[in-house]
């Protein structure tokens, strides 16, 4: 299992990266952490002509905070997200999700931007940024633009990033007063692709749900918000009844695919169980 030949170019700025991509006559790929790209190359399931190594681009790495919220550079590694005190304080949903991302050695090289740009339907961070109502900063020939997470995921492995564009940062709005977050997933083994995962971001006062965003992984081609269930919950008292009706509402929100090991029906059932457990966990934390 050895990759096909390709050319390699290391760049040190976003501009240089974009220019390298634009000037490539064949297929080019940006290489960040490489934890998904390298397996595909090794297996010859992908064979670009040029790899553009962006891992040492200045300014695309690290976490900072301002009045508009948290900014996480796309090249920030999973392990850095996991251990960042700023992330823990301002976007603790990501801190909670990070331990579920693959295994320690993958987390040491893999980047949050890489995970979001690939947008695997089973991945953890895509659901988190959806639940957090984050925005994504994308650099292209016409400069920098931002897109809301709700508009970012298009189809299976397809995002709003166009050819030759580069995801540079993730922008997360400041937490509201009363914010409660929860992340959980059901995977056969630690670090496996989840059968179903759920990121919850809610504002709860005295057990009353003011706002809530529920984002599931592995239940469709893209990370999926359960909007009917959210609507069910907003403005209600978070209790057994509310949870049950939210679980029932998932039927309108999700239509997961079946695979050889997990049927669509089982996945749907597990999504309901996970929602119930996550909401109960929020409830317990609220008390």
């Amino acid at each position, binding site marked *: 299992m050895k990759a096909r030949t390709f050319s390699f170019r290391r760049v040190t700025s976003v501009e240089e990266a974009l220019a390298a991509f634009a000037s490539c006559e064949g297929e080019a790929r940006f290489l960040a952490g490489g934890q998904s790209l390298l397996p595909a190359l090794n297996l010859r399931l992908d064979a670009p002509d040029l790899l553009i190594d962006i891992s040492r681009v200045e300014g695309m790495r690290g976490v900072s905070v301002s009045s508009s919220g948290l900014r996480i550079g796309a090249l920030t590694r999973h392990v850095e997200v996991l251990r960042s005190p700023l992330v823990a304080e301002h976007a603790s949903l990501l801190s909670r999700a990070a331990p579920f991302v693959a295994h320690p050695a993958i987390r040491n090289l893999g980047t949050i931007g890489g995970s979001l740009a690939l947008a695997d339907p089973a991945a953890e961070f895509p659901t988190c940024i959806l639940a957090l109502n984050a925005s994504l900063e994308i650099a292209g020939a016409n400069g920098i633009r931002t897109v809301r997470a709700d508009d970012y995921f298009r189809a299976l492995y397809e995002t709003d990033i166009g050819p030759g564009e580069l995801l540079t940062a993730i922008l997360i709005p400041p937490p509201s007063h009363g914010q409660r977050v929860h992340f959980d997933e*059901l995977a056969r083994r630690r670090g496996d692709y989840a059968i179903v995962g759920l990121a919850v971001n809610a504002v709860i006062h005295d057990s009353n749900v003011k706002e809530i965003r529920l984002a599931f992984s592995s239940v469709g081609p893209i990370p999926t918000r359960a909007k009917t269930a959210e609507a069910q919950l907003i403005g209600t008292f978070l209790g057994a009844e509310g949870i049950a009706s939210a679980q029932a509402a998932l039927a309108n929100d999700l239509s997961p695919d079946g695979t050889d090991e*997990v049927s669509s029906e*089982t996945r749907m059932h597990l999504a309901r169980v996970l929602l119930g457990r996550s909401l109960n966990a929020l409830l317990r934390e609220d008390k």
Partner: protein
Amino acid sequence: MTAISDSPFRAANQYIGKSLPRPGAKRLLAGRGRYTDDIVVPRMLYAAFWRSPFAHARLGAISIEAAAAMPGVHRVFIGADFAAICKPWVGTLSHFAGMKSAPQLPLATEKVLWAGHPIAMVIAETRAQAEDALEAIEVELDELEPVVDIDAAQLPDSTLVYEEAGSNVIFRTRIESGSTASAFEDAEVVEAEFRFGRHTAVTMELRSILADYDPSDGRLTVHQSTQTPYQFHDIYARHFGLSEAHVRVVAPDVGGSFGMKLHLYHEDMAVVGASILTGRPVKFTADRMESFLTDIHARDHRVRARLAISADGMFRGIEVDDVTGVGPFSAYPRTSVVEGNQVVRLIGAAYRLKDYRADLTVVAQNKTQMSQYRAVGHPIACAVTERLVDLAGARVGLDPFEIRRRNYVTQDMYPHKTPSGYSFERLSLEECLDKLHEAMDYEALRKDQARLREAGIHRGIGIATYVEITNPSPAFYGVGGAHISAQDGCVLKVTSSGGIQCLISLSELGQGAEAIVGQIVAEGVGINPNLVRVITGDTDMTPVGGATWACRGAGIGGETALQASKKLKGRILEIAGAILQCSPGKLDISDGQILDQGGNIRMSLGELANLAYFRSDLLPKGIQPELTVAHHYAPSGYPFAFTNGIHGSLVEVDVETGFVKILKHWVIEDCGRILNPLLVDEQIRGGVVQGLGAAFFEECLYSKSGQLLNGSMADYLVPMACEMPDIVIGHVETPTQDTELGAKGCGEAGTAAASGAALNAVNDALSPFKASITQLPMTPERILKALRVV
């Protein structure tokens, strides 16, 4: 009791039974292991294979010209190239009457038989260049209907995998003893249909072979990751028409084997053939996808079984129907029939039973070949038997411990012959049962279980007895015509400074064969184990022997080493007696010193060796300086040894998700004489984890068109650290009287019953829901289906 019971100094030299770490482990810990793929020789070329994407197809034109012209490419071979120099192999044995199997060649010539079947082979300067060239090969394949399902395969109009056989059933047999018809009359009957998924070994080290044929002197040297060097020595010589004197097979460090690395693979033969045809060393190391597609798969059974019981819970009879799918042909040289054969012979073996009937149907399919893997057939036989036993207990209101106790073969019955024809010298079933009861603190577990059920936590407790076949005599393979040796050989040499070099036909796979042999030789001769150097895995050096499989290393190889060491000790004392002018019978060896009966040191082994090798002029007349002995040993008593034991499993089933947490696992085992408790315990633990993999995770999934759907380590789930429990191990020792050493072997006991115990534990947890499961692995979805949740 010790092996060297005649020595008054045995306490000082007692190494058998001690928990000594393995001497070879330090090298591996320092990253200095030398596995086949680590070996680089001058002018070496690399191989890569073009494989069929289809499960069944007729082979048309193959276009290789473009590939042959690629940078770095040395040659591109197709089937006809090797057909000219390699005699086909056929995986049948004469003692399996009526068995049929398609002859095999290194590369497909007319038909491809499974997705992954190699069709063309590129030899290039690097593996990457060889893979580049694969992309330039074009192959015409005319797809045929694949044979996948074991029932559809048996229909009269089914496509045939091997047309000449006239049927996809390549072997069928029935075992019948007594009359099950009368046993089942008026009896209580419990029955079930079981399904056991296909597994594969997933050794950490991938299959690797480096063949180096030197045309100048016609010698073939093969370095290979294998557990059976002599078997391949024989195969390469016979199938390529070489003199055995010109063939050498070396097994360097082997990174896991588990039965997978004793079968012949197409790629092995292609690499040897390519080296002969090119006159260059050729290396092939499978990548992980190739391993999933070509390493033998295992298990894959559907078993229907029923057990007749009397109202007081006594077993009356068992009827079994096992259908197993083995892939497109029978594996060579052991056959793919042995797995099913052991299933139908081992079911019910631990219990008093006269009336027994079992049918075995072995079916060909267009899937990867299926054959022996750790604990061949045992986990199937164990799970089927032990599930039926629990069902019987539930039917008549007996606790799992009690129903077993009532029906076990008892101490007064040995030697005991099972209805399927196996003879047990002596087992320790009841003692193991009692020990497990105590080790688990069974009563307390049951109380906890009841209390937690109230709180909605569903724990299950399961137990499973196993009887395991070990130390096979020639009755296993030899009688069928297989060139698989049931004996082992050992050569011992005293080195010039008084150490010992031991050359033995066993192979070291990380299980510790070299360590236990070193302990035996050290004790047998009376020398510190650090001064014993054990050498394995090289047919140019070690004597001919069967090597490591079927738990035979300790029992057969160990006994060989023991007898060789006694022979050497006798020889040393003979020389010492002549030098010291006293009767050898009045001398002994302890810690490398030759002592008299009073315990006085008369001379050291080093001094004796020095005299023998450098100053033989000083030896008394008539004494030759011969300090090398050879010994061979083959079992000649019982055709097999049998070990036994029992597993306990504690699980917690999340009845909402179907996920299972394995909380704890216990094993009480009796492998006869324990040579090294540290190594035995770790063999058992490793085996248990493979059994738990079978219970909960591992399964080769196929599509309807015969495609393996989970051919990667991310998709085929092997048990990992987080999901596995701590494992408690206890021992009972019932040495075999067939040998002086008394060891029976322990490599497969962990795997044999772990899945059966887990199956019973999960069913125990599900019992309040009137739910049951009889399919392995027990995936969350299957458990949810059993619970009727989905």
